[in-house]
């Protein structure tokens, strides 16, 4: 019983992290104009979150489904691709892989402190935020859009809005690995690959 609750809580943490990181990436990379975002306090950080209803709704719908998959342990990677609108080419690929550790380790010694998780998330988000410094500039203003990919198990239930896709990898892209954070049940890592 306590296990399921902690799984739910852990999943919520992960989903929440996704929400904030997607928002930050969209803001940092200028996919949506800065005036669409407002600052919010989260993880003891000042983060930017969109206040555009349509975009909010779009992200919410994605994450709702990802949340469901995570709960069922069906999803092991979430990818945010920044796509050039004109060429349809993926210029940046942010991927978050999720490891389900709940099954493997039932032991008490594995319990991750909430504060630890928070600080790990903080570090990770800081890294994502600071990545603008090394990522190549996206020159075309307003010329980019994004797509979200989810890597799921073959037997995951797939709603209509989701369809099979290729991995949209960037060929010969530069890859930067970020830190990870872990909760009781999940270990989340992040990386970005970009056209060099």
């Amino acid at each position, binding site marked *: 019983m306590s296990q399921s609750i902690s799984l739910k809580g852990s999943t919520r943490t992960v989903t929440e992290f996704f929400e904030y990181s997607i928002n930050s990436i969209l803001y940092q990379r200028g*996919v*949506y*104009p800065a*005036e*669409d975002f407002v600052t919010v306090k989260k993880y003891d950080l000042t983060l930017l979150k969109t206040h*555009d209803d*349509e*975009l909010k709704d*779009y992200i919410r*719908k*994605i994450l709702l*489904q990802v949340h469901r998959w995570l709960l069922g342990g069906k999803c*092991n990677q979430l990818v945010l691709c920044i796509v050039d609108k004109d060429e349809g080419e993926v210029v940046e690929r942010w991927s978050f892989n999720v490891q389900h550790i709940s099954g493997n380790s039932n032991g008490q010694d594995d319990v991750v402190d909430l504060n630890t998780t928070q600080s790990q998330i903080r570090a990770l988000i800081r890294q994502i935020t600071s990545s603008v410094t090394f990522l190549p500039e996206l020159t075309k203003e*307003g010329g980019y*859009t*994004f*797509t*979200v*990919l*989810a*890597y*799921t*198990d*073959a*037997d*995951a239930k*797939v709603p209509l*809005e*989701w*369809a*099979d*896709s*290729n*991995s*949209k990898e960037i060929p010969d892209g530069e890859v930067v690995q970020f830190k990870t954070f872990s909760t009781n049940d999940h270990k989340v890592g992040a990386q970005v690959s970009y056209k060099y």
Partner: protein
Amino acid sequence: MPESSRDKGNAAISGNRSVLSIASPTKLNILSSDWSRNQGKVSKNSLKRSSSLNIRNSKRPSLQASANSIYSRPKITIGAPPLIRRDSSFFKDEFDAKKDKATFSAYSSRSYPTIGSDSVVSQTSLSQPTTSREVDEQFTVAADRYIPILQGASQNKVDPETLHEALPPPNASPISHLRAQTKIVFKQNVAEACGLDMNKRILQYMPEPPKCSSLRQKSYIMKKRTHYSYQQEQKIPDLIKLRKINTNPERILDAPGFQDDFYLNLLSWSKKNVLAIALDTALYLWNATTGDVSLLTDFENTTICSVTWSDDDCHISIGKEDGNTEIWDVETMSLIRTMRSGLGVRIGSLSWLDTLIATGSRSGEIQINDVRIKQHIVSTWAEHTGEVCGLSYKSDGLQLASGGNDNTVMIWDTRTSLPQFSKKTHSAAVKALSWCPYSPNILASGGGQTDKHIHFWNSITGARVGSINTGSQVSSLHWGQSHTSTNGGMMNKEIVATGGNPENAISVYNYETKFKVAEVVHAHEARICCSQLSPDGTTLATVGGDENLKFYKIFDPRCTGRSREDGLMDGMLGLIGKEGCRTNDKENRSKNSSEIHTRRPSSTSQYLIR
């Protein structure tokens, strides 16, 4: 180690005589060199699978021998053998040995000598309910390596529905198990060949991400703009764009003494380009070609209420305040005939049909006068209850439209003297009436100050086919056309309305879309009372309460070739034009109205017979 386990297995199987046959000697199906390499290490699968048609490996004598047994194989022996669970301890050691091997390539079959009855082949392992996924996979992979050879052609298609289907229930027929497994194997084959992981799907969230808000804003504005610009919007291809017309008049003439009365029709423009305008009691003719002005007549004590050129453009009818209608010859500047309505009220509207004049009186009667005969009043139609201020014959002469101060539009059949349709849709006096030159049975009517609408009528069915709210009274309506340069010179049917308060504007509407495409605001300083279109259909002469006569270029010239086909009107115009030339000849000209008839028998009979 495999050898020993096999022995163990064989021993166990032989005990109950069923699984045994699993190890039939036929089984060596080597599909790839990979597998053959593995052959030595892996031995277990043969236990699961009892038979195969070894078409490829027919060289082996042992295979041939066992081929016969295949046909009996699918039947499970009655008194089914005990299931051997693959994860039972019985197989344990084998599993451990293989754990780390790739599922697909690791297994290969071995052939074993048949123990016991060679014809009884058990499918036990196939029908085993499998619980663990891993076992399942190993099982299927191992068991069905041969199937692509055997049944490849029919099994190649992977039904997407069954893609994630589990194995059929244990009680399903062996065939269906076989198929299910074949599918899985095939899928795995394909997946492996493509370098994909069977257990992973990459899913993309398909809906488009929203555009950023600033772009949305922009596109909204652009949409709004294209409504009034030349840009072609993809989504609304037939949206008519704003036309540019010169909002400055081409010419302004003074019209002192012009009566600012909505109900009167004091302007008429002949096909010979002579504009007649009644200024109080006098009638002036202005030749638009030369610019000459001449005074036709001045009644001095009787005001003129309506002026209309006859169809031959040599005569002009003048409706007067006292109820008389006079016909003047403009060539000789002389009065030809006076027709008395006997009503004693002003004649506010006139319409010619060849030799007939319809006159609309203030008391609501419409009289049809034949100018050729002494008893000129052919019929009197008294259906209107208010002053008849609009009268217009349809170009083919079969119908007459009338509008009155009783807010009624009537469409009359000229043969029966009864209104075909009586429309009370307008809520004010109907003065503006105009028949469409392109589709002859469309009538446009415009209402007065409290109505402000243009209605379009189908004069055959009486149906209202469209409406425009103009925002001001409609004192006159004229059909015209413009040609879009972009659209291959396609003609747009347009209608121009002149209005009163608040803008005293000339408004041009597209007939198809009912959009206002052009406008001259404050064309006059007071309301526009009358307007006439020039013979070439391009210039609108308007006269307003400010006693000015202004000329605006509104329409593109008529496309002659097309309109000739289109409208009977133009055919008639051509006829009249010829007639006009003839009447220029002074010797042929006659003041006698009956001679007008004799000069034009063809056209008259054309109309009357119809």
